[in-house]
């Protein structure tokens, strides 16, 4: 046997390579089993970017399923609540081209919060069952109300209401949420005084 191998250097190389292949294959195979990652880390990262409104406008029952679908190659532009910012973040994460928002799934709207007109509510609990984040409080034949701070503005409670007493109220800018806007290029909409250098110099 050794003689045969010694006689044909080709065989020696072949055996060596096959041997190495087997050893490394075994090591990799063991590592794959031993250090198996639970869940799908990419789907987790995508899920962290999605806005978690759980509105289902993308056609999936919640953000997590859409994240898993994206991880498997679905388009990244189906999330209207996230809008361009989310698409951009997903494009950066997955290193794909940022597409414009798919209009078929809805348009990017101002964030809104559900409001139940409480004297019209008949207490049917249908909206409670529809709310994906348990943000509606109430009991059968009792008036319901929305916990505004928990509402994601997903619209899912509007459809099931038999008396149409739920309004989606766009969140208006308040003193707490107001902030400076980026200056528009070429327009003097600038409300800051620091840029009047010229006159100050002349003065």
């Amino acid at each position, binding site marked *: 046997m050794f003689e045969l191998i010694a006689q044909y250097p080709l065989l020696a190389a072949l055996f060596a390579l096959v041997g190495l292949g087997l050893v490394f294959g075994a090591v990799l195979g063991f590592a794959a089993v031993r250090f198996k990652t639970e869940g799908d880390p990419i789907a987790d990262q995508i899920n962290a970017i999605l806005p978690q409104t759980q509105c289902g406008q993308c056609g999936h029952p919640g953000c*997590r399923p859409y994240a898993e679908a994206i991880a498997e190659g679905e388009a990244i532009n189906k999330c209207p609540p996230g809008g361009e910012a989310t698409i951009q973040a997903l494009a950066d994460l997955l290193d794909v081209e940022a597409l414009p928002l798919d209009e078929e799934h809805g348009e990017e709207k101002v964030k809104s919060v559900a409001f139940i007109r409480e004297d019209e509510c008949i207490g049917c609990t249908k909206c409670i069952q529809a709310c994906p984040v348990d943000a509606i409080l109430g009991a059968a034949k009792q008036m319901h109300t929305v916990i505004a701070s928990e509402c994601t503005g997903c619209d899912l409670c509007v459809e099931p209401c038999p008396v149409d007493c739920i309004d989606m109220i766009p969140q208006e800018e308040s003193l707490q949420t107001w902030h400076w806007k980026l200056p528009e290029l070429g327009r003097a909409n600038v409300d800051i005084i620091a840029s009047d*250098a010229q006159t100050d110099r002349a003065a």
Partner: protein
Amino acid sequence: MRKIFDFHGGIHPPENKQQSLGEPIRDAGIPAQLVVPLSQHIGAPSSPIVAVGDRVLKGQVIAEAAGFVSVPQHAPSSGTVAAIEERPIPHPSGFHALCIVIDCDGRDEWLPHRGLENYEGESPSDLLEHIREAGIAGMGGAGFPSAVKLKEKPGASIDTLIINGTECEPYITADDALMREHAAEIVAGAEILRHIVGPKNTLIGVEDNKPEGIAALQAAAEGTGIEIVVFPTKYPSGGEKQLIEILTGRQVPSGGLPADVGVVCQNVGTAVAVYDAIVHGRPLISRITTITGEAVSRPGNYRVLLGSPMQHLLDLAGFDPARNQRLVMGGPMMGFTLTDSAVPVVKTTNCLLAPSAEELPAPPPAQACIRCGLCAEACPASLLPQQLFWFARGKEYDKLEEHNLFDCIECGACSWACPSHIPLVQYYRASKADILQQRRDHEKSEQSRIRFEARQERLAREEAEKEAKRLARKKAAELRAQQQAAESGDDSGAEVDPIQAAIERAKAKKAAQQQAAGGESEQDKLEKAVASTRKRLDTASAKLEQARAEGSDLIDALQSGVDKTRAKLEAAEKALAEHLASQDNPPPASEPAVAKPRSAAEIAIAKAKAARAAEADLSPQEKARKQLDSLRQRLDKSEQRLAQSREAGEDEKIVEALAATVQRLKEKISALESEAEKVESP
């Protein structure tokens, strides 16, 4: 002589301070109405504790602090609470916020108050409580609650207390005037602060363009151990971090606080407010405000009650609206344009600038960045404004954070230096706000995700519990069937289908009921039905005859009733005949359970499943069409029913209800049709 350090960058804009220093501090008096905003400081707005109509005295608490980072508000003069409502407040947004409005009675009647006789005998925490209760928030411009800032941080030992008398921004002279006229109070306040903080050194930093103020302070500080440090004028040396670097040579680390390098900073105005609160027991209800600019004929410094409308000050200073182009609160570098001259003076209003159009024109349109690098040379925080500008325009928020955007103090030096007039600071302010908004959104989405997952888990758990119960019931039924089979001695009992068993049980029950009802057989029932129908037909016919004889208008209705009853009778007779026939040769299908392993219930379930699966396979168009078909069927049926009941002359109400149903169905169909058309022909 203390060694003076220098900080990176800085600019030398025209100072324009002389205009407002011609006269000593004047008293602005009591306006007819005071508007006290509940949020004059950084942190939670205070909550009102007075009601509309209450009489309040000068210095009375009208709103208490809500939370740790908050301060109370006091009535700046005596009067009656006229309203607690949303009023415009001095804020760049021009928004309204909750304010307490006081109609002044002009008597300026104080609430009885007295200061601490010997503050040195009090503990720092008691003194801090006094400062907090006096409503003192940083008077240099930011308005951070002073008691919070002075509170000892665990692990930080403060060796230097700095009183900031720099006032580096052009036009503003409020602190200068205070130093000239109230140097003793500033030094006394600094001594109180020194007692609270316990530093090795207490410094008062003043720029060298205020010689009168410096002289007054030096005279007042004689023998107190408080050092007056004078350094060259440069904007923005009054910035907290810049001043610390000038006086101590230490740099506050990025994202850190002055306490991290052993320093606490307070404004001279705050020192006077602390002195007033501790020694005289007077809360913060007034401040010195500079009114200047070419649009006022008598610029100067005024002692103003907080809550006085800006218009009141403008009237005092001889404001000429024709010359004015915009009102600015604060200085020309860091201030903002006011949208309304009715906004009140607040704790942070150090200056009200009413410039003429020539003095402070609207900025020229921004040109392209020429990468000259002047902004980087001017930046006192050693940032790269040009880089930040590109990233801000590209909304590359992570890069902005990597380039330490949050160390920007928004002093405006870069914008001032920019030859292309790019409003750089506004880019940074907007980007900072966007980043903070993103962080908040992310927090909220994280919360939503947790709630969503908790809900999914709960639903799954409920479903599992139901399933377990169902299984338990099934098992119990099987057990019972087995027992029954064992009892009846049937050898195939062990294999009995539970549903079959249930059917058997139901049959047995029914049979038992029939027996209980007197052993009535199917035939008896049918015979009875025929007899009763015949009887009803007879009476109906008799009534019809009678109506005909009387010529009543009910004839038609009665006629249809008779017809109906006759039809029913025929049906009953037929059923009886069929039953009799089937009795003669009973059907051989008495053992379906053995022949068919699946029970009727299972078949029904399977059917329903198949139907649902078929529906799921359908495209939305097909679904719509199917829905349409079923609706049309329903419409046909309803129309028939309507026609019948019209013919039969049923109650008007019923006819109306049926008509409404038909109408509704028609509407639904037309809506669906139009939708379907839309889908099919986009």
